[in-house]
């Protein structure tokens, strides 16, 4: 197959001369797809930015691209600019931020093309004409993305770059997004997709390139790489897919820690959940799932007594209702693990101090007695506690947050999307840890997650908020 765009020896360096991307080469076949996959910081986005000439100021690029036989140096940003719109189109990362908030949709996607052309592009993506008259803030994220795909179709560009098309999307939207991008292929455009989600590669087919720490570890046709990965990292990556996790056998102790009856919570006119009853058992994992904005976090907060439901009651295992009692005796036994570990600690205060701040609510001597073995169990170096939160990595901070929670010997832990911002490998590690802690500590874990596959892999009970 003839290559329409060939990227040769692309390297990116920062101001100090450190290599961020090292000699990456690949070729995009005409009307075919290339998917670059890798974790955060692997340099995959820099590759896309370098091809477009949009690398942030201060970084220097070397290498060249071959376009239909012509060669362009990647260090020459002005020359790359000539290729915009006519040869290269972009479907940007965050669809809604890429649209001018003060301009209606149709003139924006028309761009330099004829309006009839834009109409045609919108129709081919089954966007109604009325969408063209709306302002970007009135569109949903998915709709905005469709608009941007239509925008790519109004240009003549044979190559479309899709930057993280599934970032921040709900689980069930991924398929939809992939099929939307496949429509670009159906229209005869070639696609370069940048992603951290293996499902994008599976869905688009074509070639896949696995990147790590600025290097291309391996590349080849998607089926070959997935079926027979040559590199250990690729194999680990594929195994981190929740669909491939080993199922766990249920071993419940039927001792309830929380009863909730007929809970209702509404925001304005919208009911997030209604007449919801549930019981949490020790040693079991209950998952709350649903699309973003469906009230997963809110339900967790209601169970913890942080947010008052509009109707219904919550009863903890000693019979108190946390919404009726001002200072429930079991307050600290019902804990929460936050999504972003960095925000779960006060910025600028040494971690050990932050743990010592808890002394007034901990039993006397508990900190000195229980903390060292906990840190040991969670494989946290005690010296890390002498640092401030921003001097510790995300994964370590998450484990320190877990240690802080375990100091209270919780009966119930609500983990709010604990892995949604983590790369697949770390995601698996953290989830495994939580799973074993449920058994060891004999607590009840409530896991909120939009990732249905993750939920399927670990939970005993699933509450789906649709």
């Amino acid at each position, binding site marked *: 197959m003839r290559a329409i765009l060939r990227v040769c020896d692309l390297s990116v360096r920062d101001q100090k001369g450190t290599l961020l991307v090292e000699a990456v080469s690949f070729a995009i076949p005409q009307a075919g797809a290339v998917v670059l996959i890798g974790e955060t910081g692997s340099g995959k986005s820099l590759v896309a930015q370098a091809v*477009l000439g*949009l690398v942030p100021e201060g970084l220097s690029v070397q290498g060249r691209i071959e376009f239909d036989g012509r060669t362009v140096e990647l260090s020459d940003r002005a020359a790359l*600019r000539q290729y*915009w*719109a*006519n040869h*290269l*189109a*972009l479907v*940007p*990362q*965050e669809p809604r*931020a*890429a*649209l*001018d*908030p*003060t*301009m209606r949709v149709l003139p924006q996607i028309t*761009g*330099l093309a004829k309006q009839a052309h834009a109409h045609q592009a919108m129709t081919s993506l089954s966007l109604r004409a009325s969408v063209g008259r*709306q*302002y970007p*803030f*009135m569109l949903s994220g998915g709709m905005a993305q469709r608009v941007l795909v239509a*925008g790519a179709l109004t*240009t003549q560009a044979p190559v479309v770059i899709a930057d993280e098309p599934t970032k921040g999307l709900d689980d069930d939207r991924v398929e939809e997004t992939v099929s939307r991008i496949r429509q670009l292929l159906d229209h005869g455009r070639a696609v370069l997709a940048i992603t951290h989600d293996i499902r994008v590669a599976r869905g688009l087919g074509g070639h896949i390139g696995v990147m790590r720490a600025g290097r291309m570890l391996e590349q080849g046709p998607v089926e070959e790489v997935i079926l027979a990965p040559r590199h250990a990292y690729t194999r680990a990556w594929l195994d981190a897919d929740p669909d491939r996790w080993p199922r766990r056998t249920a071993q419940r102790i039927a001792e309830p820690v929380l009863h909730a009856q007929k809970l209702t919570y509404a925001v304005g006119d919208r009911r997030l959940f209604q007449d919801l009853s549930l019981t949490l058992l020790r040693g079991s994992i209950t998952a709350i799932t649903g699309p973003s904005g469906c009230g997963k976090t809110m339900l967790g907060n209601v169970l913890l007594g942080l947010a008052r439901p509009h109707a219904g009651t919550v009863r903890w295992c000693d019979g108190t209702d946390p919404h009726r009692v001002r200072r429930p005796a079991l307050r600290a036994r019902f804990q929460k693990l936050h999504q972003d570990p960095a925000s779960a600690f006060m910025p600028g205060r040494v971690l050990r101090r932050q743990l010592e701040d808890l002394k007034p609510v901990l039993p006397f001597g508990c900190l000195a007695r229980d903390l060292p073995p906990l840190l040991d169990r969670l494989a946290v170096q005690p010296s890390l506690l002498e640092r401030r939160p921003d001097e510790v990595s995300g994964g370590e901070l998450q484990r320190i947050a877990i240690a802080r929670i375990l100091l209270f010997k919780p009966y119930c832990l609500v983990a709010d999307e604990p892995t949604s911002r983590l790369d697949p490998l770390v995601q698996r590690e953290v989830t495994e840890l939580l799973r074993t802690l449920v058994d060891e500590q004999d607590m009840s874990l409530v896991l909120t997650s939009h990732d249905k596959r993750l939920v399927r892999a670990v939970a005993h009970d699933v509450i789906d908020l649709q």
Partner: protein
Amino acid sequence: MQRAVRHAVPRAVLRRVLEALSVALILATICFALLHAIPGDMALRIAVGQLGTENMSPAAVEQIRDAEMLSRPLLVQYFDWLKAVATGDIGRSFVSGRPVAEELRQAGGYTLRLAVIAWLLSYALALPLGIAAGLKPDGAIDRATAFAAAAFSSLPTFLIGIALISIFVLALNLLPPAGYRRPEHLVLPAITLALGLMAPSMRVIRDAVAEVQASAYMTYAHVRGFGKAKAFIRHGLRNASVPIVTFAALQFAYLMDGFFVVETLFNFPGIGNAMVSALLARDVPVVMGCALLIGTTFAAISLAADLICMWMDPRLVDEGHGSR
């Protein structure tokens, strides 16, 4: 969308009108309280104002006390007085004896003329400089304007005025110093006000432009083949205008502060000058008239800014609030 617009605009108008009314009411109350709190006999002061010191007599004072009904309980006086204010009758000046409304109409006209010229002049200077600085953050123009803005915002208005007087009047003898008879008299006060206004607005314009330039939709427009200039005109101007217009309205407050000083310095017969002389003479009805006029104008301008912002940025209509 249509429904949102129908609701949002009247709501903004209602809010600002209520605000203007409350401001007026509070100012009026403060003035009334102070009027009765300042030491000395009210009737005596009014008599001095209307008749002059020479024609004063105890009988005249008593006559005025009866005429103005000053012996009634304070609360009754307050409500009667509010009623009169609501119908537009603020009373007569203690000093000149003329109706306050009449005096203010004249002074307001002068001030409005000065305000419009100073305003236009300041934006004529600030817009090109601010945009140039924002298009190239950290460039030479940006740094120079940042320095100038810091210096100008640390200068009290009267110092700018004094500097201009010493250059253009005393040294070069180009312009008339003070008063208001010919249009040339407007030049120095207007420049003084404009220079004071320019410093902060230049920075706001620069920040707005720089933010828009760095936005994702700007990059996207570039990648879609729009050149720098074309993309800026298409997407930049409108988006950058929202914070600028909001700020322009808030700047009316700065302009107000400026009036008091500049009009006094140049002896310009506007509202600011009237208010300062009235304060010095304890001419409470005039002070109150000025305060009411300034307070309500301020609210009216805020309302205009809200409406303009809603028209420019449809998101604000959806959220149902404008500037601030």
